[in-house]
């Protein structure tokens, strides 16, 4: 009896799932909706994804597009179970955004196992297109290597040759510390030490005092979001900058600068893939975004979600099919990218999206003309130098292709 009822349930459930998979394109925005990374992605990423879908008239190759979202709470186990349910039960075809490297690495694996599509914008670890690369992953916006190569290299060149790191104690912080240390030593600098702090720590004064006593010229902040904000605030309070040491924010989002205020953040150098006020195209797109999102300008993560979804839909349109995740990603790699946020670009064999990165400095309060007018550009890092060379990443896809 029990077996019979289970079989019945299966028979009833199967066509429903198949139906759901066949008729609509479902894109799941999976990110931090409530915690320390919610402002840089969160609902803004959902808005960005919806904007991309609307540009296709919410329909591609005859299939309507549906955007869903969920909160992974920065926990890999929660993220994994949402992803599994989305893929197996709800008929989701692609997962986008996923900040928090720990969660992103888990989703990359699940997506490959289920042969779906994973377009990451929010996570930083360069392992996504390195050791942990899969034929189903595209890493869109930035990564730890490009951040280190941008901010790290410039700071060492400007004479900041001794470093001490404040590291967020999980996959992202460790990867950022590793990649930046490599850049620092390669350019003739020295790393004097580091201290790991728990994710979402409330008080940084103690860690900063340790950095202070190291006497390093540069204190590298290998953390993000709320953690970076609190580090910078405490540093200005404890007179670290007046004492002659400099802060290098290795991953700073515009939402962080907004929360800090220019008074605390001015002079900070940072690397970003996107700034709303860069050119006419970014301004026009950001204006549309801000109009729908309480007047807040998009972060580079949100811009990356928009551009990533756009390109995904283009690939589906070209293929006229969405069912084979590997084929869709292969098509994404074959097609050149073009969108208002990042301009023209390409996606490499290892899944790395290639575009220029920009080194910015945060404006002084007097230089800013109003809210969100925060950055001045120091330098453009051309696309061919902005990311880790293809052969240095140890991505199995690349090494296998060579043999």
């Amino acid at each position, binding site marked *: 009896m029990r077996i019979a009822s289970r079989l019945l349930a299966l028979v009833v459930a199967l066509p429903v799932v198949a139906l759901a998979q066949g008729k609509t394109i479902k894109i799941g925005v999976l990110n931090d909706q*409530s*915690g*320390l990374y*919610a*402002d*840089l992605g*969160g609902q803004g990423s959902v808005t960005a994804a919806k904007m991309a879908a609307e540009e296709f008239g919410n329909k591609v190759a005859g299939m309507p597009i549906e955007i869903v979202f969920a909160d992974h709470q920065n926990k890999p186990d929660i993220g994994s179970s949402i992803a599994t349910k989305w893929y197996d039960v709800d008929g989701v075809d692609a997962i986008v955004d996923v900040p928090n490297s720990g969660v992103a690495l888990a989703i990359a694996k699940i997506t490959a196992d289920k042969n779906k599509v994973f377009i990451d914008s929010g996570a930083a670890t360069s392992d996504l297109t390195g050791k942990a690369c899969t034929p189903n992953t595209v890493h869109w916006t930035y990564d730890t290597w490009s951040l280190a190569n941008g901010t790290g290299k410039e700071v060492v060149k400007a004479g900041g040759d001794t470093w001490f790191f404040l590291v967020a*104690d999980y996959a992202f912080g460790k990867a950022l510390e590793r990649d930046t240390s490599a850049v620092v030593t390669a350019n003739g600098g020295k790393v004097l030490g580091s*201290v*790991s*702090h*728990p994710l*979402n*720590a*409330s*008080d940084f*004064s*103690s*860690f900063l*005092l*340790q950095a202070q*006593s190291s006497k390093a010229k540069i204190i590298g902040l290998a953390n993000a*979001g*709320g953690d970076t*904000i*609190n580090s910078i*605030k*405490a540093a200005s*309070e*404890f*007179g670290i900058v007046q*004492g002659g040491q400099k802060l290098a924010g290795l991953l700073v989002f515009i*939402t*962080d600068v*907004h*929360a*800090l*205020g220019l*008074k*605390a953040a001015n002079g900070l150098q940072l690397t970003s893939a996107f700034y709303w006020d860069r050119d006419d195209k970014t301004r026009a797109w950001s204006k549309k975004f801000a109009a729908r999102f309480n007047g807040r300008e998009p972060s580079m993560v949100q811009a990356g979600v928009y551009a990533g979804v756009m390109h995904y839909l283009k690939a589906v349109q070209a293929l006229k099919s969405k069912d084979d995740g590997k084929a869709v990603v292969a098509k994404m790699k074959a097609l050149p990218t073009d969108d208002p946020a990042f301009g023209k670009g390409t996606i490499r064999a290892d899944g790395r999206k290639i575009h220029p990165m920009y080194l910015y400095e945060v404006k002084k309060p007097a230089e800013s003309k109003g809210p969100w007018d925060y950055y001045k550009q120091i330098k453009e890092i051309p696309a061919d130098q902005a990311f880790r060379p293809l052969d240095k990443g140890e991505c199995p896809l690349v090494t296998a292709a060579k043999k």
Partner: protein
Amino acid sequence: MTTVFGIPIQALFSQLLVGLINGSFYALLSLGLAIIFGLLNVINFCHGALYMLGALLAWLMLEHAGIGYWPALILSPLAVGLFGALIERTMLKRLRGLDPLYGLLLTFGLALVIQGVARNYFGVSGEPYDIPPQLTGGKNLGFMYLPNYRGWVILVSVLLCTLTWFVTERTRLGSYLRAATENPLLVQAFGINVPRLITITYGLGVALAAFAGVMAAPIYRVSPLMGADLIIVVFAVVVIGGMGSIFGSIVTGFALGVIEGLTKVFYPEASSTVVFVIMAIVLLVKPAGLFGRTT
């Protein structure tokens, strides 16, 4: 340079001082919790949310009415205290005499509502709040650079804790309060308005939280989650100190701040868990807490 366990003694001193600053906040918050639990038998889970509300009000006053730090230090706790009195009058009052769990569930729900509403309007990154101009800068103490504002936090928190302890333990009002907890019926028979006394106590307890919130605003971000991040640690402090023991919560607050500070030197990764390890040990050895009465 002299070292202790391989750590320069200067670094150790500065960490102790930093720990003391954090301890100030633990003490201020756990004090309010202890008063409320001691006198009302309510486990006030919305304490963190009201602490956040205090900071948020200070920010709103500055942003929209131009009211600065000093007036906000009075006005914001006053407003939150009145809000607390309203909560007590309209909701908590109905739960009197029931299992304390009901109060816990109610206040936990309130905390979620308050935080959710704040998050909806202000996002999670938080808003900047400047240190008042009178307290910017700092002093070089030889072993470390102490920002004036942090020194002010320690000073005020010690003063306020002493004052609260004095009022509850050494004044007539305090004796009414304590008597009302022991036997409300009898105290009422003596002509004292016990329900009003309880409302005032709850209002005062949450006003303390709001005060701590305004004090914290210039140090941390004014963010809807600032209370949620802190409240669990503060509860651990109250449990270690002994539920309802005012003196215990003050001493434990400062002590745990210092212990946490030292952990950040010797094994930083454990700094967010050390308080709970201590809590587990204390509960095993002395279930009523270090300063709690076993009844």
